[in-house]
Structures are given as C-alpha cells and as structure tokens.
C-alpha cells in the first residue's frame, strides 16, 4: 500500500486533493470538500458522503453541475453527522439541501441524525436514499439493497437540475426517480485490502470470482470458477434486467472496482453492449471508468438507468468536477 500509516490515510488523501484541486475548498480537519463558490445564490445544494475508499466518489464529484459538498468518512465507514451538518451550513443558500445517501445502515443513521441537527439550525433538508444493487434482496431479512453505481447517476442528474435552479422538491423527486430507475450488479476478481487490516478482507484465489459483491469487500452471494468477460456480462446484465425491465433507452455505467485495467473495462463494455443489444435494450449514453471503487479490488459493476428525455438532457448538461467533466 502506498500510505504512511493507516490512521492518516483519509487526511493524507485530502491534503493531496487540496494541492491538486485549487478549485475546491478542502477542509482537512473537518473532512469536507466544498465547491469554492458555495453557497450559490438561489441554488439547491447537494451534499453527499460516505466511507472513503470509493474514490473518486464522492469528493471527486464536487463542482458545478454535481455536488456542492462531500463528506468523506474513514475507510469504508460512514462519515459522522458533524461533517454533514457543517457541509449543509457551508453550502445552503436558503434554497435547501439534498442529502444523497447510499443505503447502508451506517450512512442512513448518520445522515438521519445530521438532517435533524441541520434542520434545528434552520436548514431545509431533503434526503434521497440510493439503493440499486440487485445482488441484495430488498426484504425485511436484509438491510435493503446497497447503494452503488446509481449514486453517480443520481448526483449527476439531480445536480444538473439543481444547477438549472429547480426547487428542492423537484431536485429531490428527480433524485428519487433516478434511483428508482437504476439497478446495479457487481463482480469481484480479487478481494480488497483495507489499510487498517492490511490483508485481504476475504480470500479469493486467482481463478475464482465472486458474483454480487458490494463496494466494501463484503463477500458476495456466490463464488464461481473464473468466467470470460462475455460470460460475466451475461450474468451481470441479466441480473440487472431481471429487476429493471426497461421500456426505453438506458444510461450505462461500466464501472471498475479500482484495480481492473481500463483496457479490460472497455473490453467488458463491448460485451455489456452486446448483451444489451441481444436483449433489445437501447443505449442512450455509456460511461466507462473507475468511478465507484473499492480500494484495490479488481472487478467491475454494471449500472443501468432507464431514462427519459429530461434525464438525458440533464446527463448531458455541463459538469465540472475532478472526475466528471463535460459540456461547454
């Protein structure tokens, strides 16, 4: 691992981010990354956050057209309410704040506490829960589907709507629509090693893979002998489509878990596109890269989001963050 000591990994990362991104305000002590021009008058602010180790999520998505602020927690550990409250105060222009929360018990509890505290301080807060991972059954026997790749779609599309000046209820309901229209499935080709533990979270011998993993090194639902990229695409896309059944075009995110080479991700994308076309699904836009990662895990995930014209327009809208930039 390229670190000093496990205890300072998050702070060191923030210091390095500050040096590379003068366009952001990075508060290392309070663990906040904020748009330099926040609060933007009249604009609804988006705040997200979660455990670190998923970079560029979320801090890499702070900037015009996307998040107003991000709160990085310890590695794989939800941030604390203090961070979120401070973030809300820093970015609220009076138009209110949307908390984008990935559905994990820790994130949910901490953001809930923060919402109460921020409201006590007079900030209007709405929350959207992202829960797109079809590998987890959404039943009373689980904590519900995990939030993974769809987070990027929610933050980008709702962020664009907020930048257009839409009020909090509309930004919130758009975020909810994007989450509702999105599903993901992930595959690990290696385990993940956290700095604190120093050894792989689970044992995954070369020649085997885990289907249905999350982004925290939680073991998946099933282990299988190694499959080809084409076979993995079949399993992943079909798992998503079983739950989603899109009636229109989709956004596609082919996401790397961190250690899978971009060349392989692009090759995997070719297979994902093949499966989609075999299943009669049309593709509106495709994004390929390491966006919602799990430290040094090798593997990938597929996220699909069924979109309408408004969502595509918002997807295409300008965005200017460290990790996503386009439009003029």
């Amino acid at each position, binding site marked *: 691992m390229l670190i000093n000591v*496990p205890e300072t990994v998050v702070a060191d990362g923030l210091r390095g981010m500050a040096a590379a991104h003068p366009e952001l305000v990075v508060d290392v002590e309070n663990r906040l990354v904020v748009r330099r021009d926040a609060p933007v008058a009249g604009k609804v602010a988006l705040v997200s956050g979660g455990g670190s180790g998923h970079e560029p999520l979320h801090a890499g998505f702070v900037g015009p057209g996307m998040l107003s602020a991000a709160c990085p927690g*310890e590695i794989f550990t939800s941030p604390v309410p203090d961070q979120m409250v401070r973030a809300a105060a820093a970015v609220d222009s009076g138009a209110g704040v949307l908390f984008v929360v990935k559905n994990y*018990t820790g994130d949910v509890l901490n953001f809930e506490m923060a919402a109460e505290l921020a409201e006590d301080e007079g900030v209007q807060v709405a929350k959207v829960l992202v829960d797109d991972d079809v590998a987890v059954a959404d039943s009373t026997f689980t904590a519900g589907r995990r939030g993974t790749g769809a987070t990027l779609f929610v933050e980008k599309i709702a962020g664009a709507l907020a930048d257009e000046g839409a009020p909090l209820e509309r930004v919130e309901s758009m975020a909810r629509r994007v989450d509702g229209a999105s599903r993901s499935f992930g595959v690990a080709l290696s385990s993940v090693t956290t700095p604190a533990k120093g050894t792989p979270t689970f044992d995954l011998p070369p020649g085997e893979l885990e289907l249905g993993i999350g982004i925290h*090194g939680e073991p998946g*639902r099933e282990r299988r002998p190694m499959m080809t990229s084409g076979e993995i695409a079949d399993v992943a896309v079909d798992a998503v489509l079983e739950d989603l059944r899109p009636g229109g075009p989709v956004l596609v995110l082919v996401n790397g878990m961190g250690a899978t080479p971009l060349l392989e991700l692009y090759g995997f994308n070719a297979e994902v596109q093949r499966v989609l076309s075999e299943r009669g699904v049309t593709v509106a836009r495709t994004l390929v890269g390491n966006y919602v990662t799990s430290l040094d895990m090798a593997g990938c995930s597929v996220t699909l989001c069924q979109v309408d014209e408004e969502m595509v327009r918002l997807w295409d809208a300008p965005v200017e963050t460290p990790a996503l930039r386009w439009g003029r």
Partner: protein
Amino acid sequence: MLLDTEFFRRWMAATAVAMDREADRLTELDAAIGDADHGSNMRRGFATVNDVLDKEAPDTPGALLTLAGRHLISTVGGASGPLYGTLLRRTGKALGDAREVTREQLAEALGAGVAAVAQLGGAGTGDKTMLDALSPAVEVLGASFAEARDAALAGALETVPLRARKGRASYLGERSIGHQDPGAASAALLLEALAESAGPRGGGDA
C-alpha cells in the same frame, strides 16, 4: 453500593483499553461478514471519549455518559457510531443528574439505552447484532455486574449460528451463518469493562 462519576470514568477507561486490545479481533470478525472496520471504529471512538473525559471531567454519571455518547456519534461513524453513541447518550439521559446511582438505576437506564438502540436500528434480538449481547445483559444487570458480563458474552457467542437480518452482514444471507457478530463481540467487551470497573477496586457485586 453507589456508583459515582469516578466509577463511570473507570468504565469508559477500561472499555477503551479493551477495545484497543481487541481491535484486531473485532476487525477480523467484521472482515468475515462485514467490511473489516469494526475494530478500528471502536478503538478510535473510545480513545476519543477518554480524551474528552480527561479534558471536560463531567461531574455526574449522567453527564459523563451523555458526553461519551455524543462523542462516539461525532467520531465513529458507520453503523456502530450512532448506535453505541445512542446507547450511552440515552443511558446517560436516563440517569438524570444524580451524583451517584445504584446498580439497579444503572440497569434501568441502560435498558432505556438499549431500547433506543433497538428503535434507531430497527433490530430485535436474534437479528445477529449488538442487541444480542446487550439485551440479555441489561436483563440481569439488576442482579449483578458479573452476571451481566456473562450474559453479554454468552449472547455474543450465540450470534454465531444466527443468520443476520440487519446491518451489513445481512447482505450475505446464509453465508453470514457460522460467524460471530462483531458488534455483539464489542458489546460483550463493554459489559466486561463494566464488571471489571465494579470489581476489586469498584466495590464489586457479591
């Protein structure tokens, strides 16, 4: 026997020592069915609590636990931060501003804390969470510290054959069976530290 602020200070100190000593084991347990951070979460949280208590020295048991809980919430994060934070905060609130409390009062207050945890996290006993160690412990804490400790330990071990229905381990379904819940294991440490504080130096049970 009355429990004074100093007693609670010792409890928190002993808890921090235990969490630090057992951090690797807690993280290993969390690696098996979670995300391998429970040990460092607990270590960081209780270390901070002790730093704060050194500085602020609250003067009632209730104030002390409330402060400890608030700081767990502010420094731990994850699922365990709000849950342990709520446990101590609500226990502290239930103790009111008495300068000394009885073990029975503590048992009752801790019961309120555990109830708050159950409400916040939506879990019941048997869901393979910290509640499986906490609930049996508060039930017998009225009788003795040692029994509460033993009940917590037993409850933690009894999570092994359970299938998780809450928290991160629930994602594993059947595969969560056969592993001890890390939060239950840390809850047992909390109760162990309590019994230790009440031991030779603390007035004991008998």
